[in-house]
């Protein structure tokens, strides 16, 4: 978000109790193809205990955003600008050593693929104990007891016995429960969950999501949920940020977004969610075309080539749309579309 609007909105929001406040965050990847702008001046905020969704197609920069927030972008990637405030402190200038005290304690991550997220040659117990002892001075035995409690919390049966199992002895769903246990181990204020259920089969998805919901509600942990699945957003989140080509193109409460979409991309995304009651014969709706190459962005609106509203419109081809505040009655909606104001009536 650029310029004045950002400052107006964030000035109002600083009065609220924010766990996470990201401003103008920018992350580039230096590849052979050129500089890939994965995260392009993204601003977002998460209130204490709030559940915020980030939706978008794959390649829209969601995962890079998650890693950028906790400073885990590895070369060839680099965070080139912006600030990240966690519990009011600007952590974007922190050294890695300072960030180490925050990761796993104030903010935890859950990743997409539980099959590759655990070290195959260490026991589950050791991997939970590691995060506990990293942040709390605790004897091994005590940390192990704590790990058993955590495994019980995430409903792993026979927790005590399974503590000494290795990852290959766990199923995918069970491994994701372990990841949740690791994320919750030090009761962080914020969990960033990057597609936490995408790699699981459908029934397991629902179980894991319900579990996560129960646990974060009990602890009033804020969650930044990254997903491409609007159904999950509807179920889980209070607020939603729609990402496209490295930008947040629409921000709204979940109720508002599902009622009216200010950005044509949001509308298209929503149309792609299959609803069993409305299924007709024929192919499922898709968004034609592909997201733009983040190394060679078009000069105008990045969605213009695929947009049902603005395709071929000169304004859309030539000018990047600024964020437009389309509704502002305690539940603001911001959208980056030249037609957002017209559409939102």
């Amino acid at each position: 978000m650029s310029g004045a609007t950002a400052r107006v909105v964030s000035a109002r929001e600083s009065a609220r109790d924010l766990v996470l406040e990201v401003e103008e965050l920018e992350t580039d990847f230096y590849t052979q193809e050129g500089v890939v702008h994965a995260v392009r001046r993204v601003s977002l905020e998460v209130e204490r205990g709030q559940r915020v969704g980030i939706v978008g197609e794959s390649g829209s920069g969601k995962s890079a955003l998650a890693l950028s927030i906790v400073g885990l972008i590895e070369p060839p990637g680099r965070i080139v600008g912006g600030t990240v405030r966690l519990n009011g402190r600007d952590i974007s200038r922190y050294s890695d050593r300072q960030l180490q005290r925050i990761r796993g304690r104030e903010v935890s991550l859950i990743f997409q693929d539980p099959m590759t997220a655990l070290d195959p040659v260490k026991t589950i117990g050791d991997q939970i104990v590691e995060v506990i002892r990293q942040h709390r001075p605790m004897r091994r035995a005590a940390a192990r007891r704590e790990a058993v409690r955590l495994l019980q919390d995430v409903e792993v049966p026979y927790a005590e016995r399974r503590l000494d199992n290795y990852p290959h002895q766990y199923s995918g769903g069970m491994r994701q429960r372990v990841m949740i246990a690791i994320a919750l181990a030090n009761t962080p204020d914020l969990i960033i969950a990057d597609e936490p259920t995408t790699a699981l089969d459908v029934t397991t998805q629902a179980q894991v999501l319900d579990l996560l919901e129960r646990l974060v509600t009990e602890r009033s942990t804020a969650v930044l949920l990254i997903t491409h699945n609007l159904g999950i957003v509807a179920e889980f989140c209070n607020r939603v940020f729609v990402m496209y080509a490295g930008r947040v193109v629409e921000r709204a409460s979940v109720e508002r977004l599902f009622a009216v979409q200010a950005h044509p991309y949001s509308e298209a995304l929503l149309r792609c969610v299959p609803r069993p009651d409305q299924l007709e014969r024929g192919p499922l709706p898709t968004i034609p075309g592909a997201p733009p190459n983040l190394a060679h962005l078009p000069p105008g609106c990045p969605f213009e080539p695929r947009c049902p509203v603005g395709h071929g419109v000169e304004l859309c081809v030539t000018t990047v749309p600024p964020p437009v505040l389309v509704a502002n009655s305690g539940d603001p909606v911001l959208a980056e579309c030249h037609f957002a104001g017209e559409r939102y009536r």
Partner: protein
Amino acid sequence: MTRIVLDKLFGAGVAIFGASLLAFLFMRVVPGNPARLIVGPLATPQAITAQEHAMGLNKPLWVQYWRYISGIFSGNWGFAYSTGQTVKHEIVARLPASAELGFYAFVFAFLFAILFALVATYRRRRLVDAAIRGLSFIGLGTPPFWLGLLLLLLLSQIWGILPGPEGRLGPNTPPPPTVTHFYTFDALIAGQWGTFWNAIQHLVLPAITLGLAPFAYLVRLLRANLLDISRENFIVVVRSKGVGRWSAFVRHALPNAFLPTLTAAGLLLAQLLTGTVLVEEVFNWPGIGQFVVESILRQDYAVVQTFVLLSAIAYVVVNLLVDVLYGVIDPRVRLPVAR
């Protein structure tokens, strides 16, 4: 689990049997007659026949093979005609020197390979990585005997930092009382610090010379594996727990990257333990390599057969150890006992 162990043991037995058979047959296929070599060029045919009888060379092959094998297991390893000593005496006198050198060469290669591979991959500095890769290329391409001569020239002749090619100890240092046959260990056991230091000084150059190629090989292998593993998802997860880069690398990336290296290291160790001719020659090392080569030329059957068999046993034992270590490091190798 017992099934796996039995499989391994069976495989080991087959390997040792095969090696003994090959050594036995190759020696006999090679043209020439050892009896003739022993009695000399002017001997009468009768003398040659008598010598053949004495050595059992007139017996059928399978009887000769049986004598060889049963001799090995009953501790009678035969007689080395070329030196006039029993084979056992010769091997006990020479193998420990080779084994000690090989052991230290391996320790040097292995430890430095880990260190250099970590340095090459840890910070992802291109220059450091390129330098280490270059070094490993040089290591792989350098003939050890040439490197040995160069090191001797520089460090012993010109700078005088280390002793010259005097063998295992300096001329004024008596060997320590024998326990393990390794001079360094025996000196420590006897508390003879001077002897220990002397032995170490004599080991440095030959160990580096012998270990450089295995070092270079292991660096390349470990570096590639470390790079692969450090891109794995679980390393990011570990970092997201608040673990530092170095700890994540050493505690998580290294054990995983280690697995393929271990197999290679086992083979290298077995190879190094049984000696290398040229390096021993350059450093005047009283090892077994030179002796075995001479024995082959002189068709000294008993020496070669015994040596090949002992080498095969060394290979097999080291590889069994590697398999066991594999199981210790990688839980997926162990059978899932309970689900």
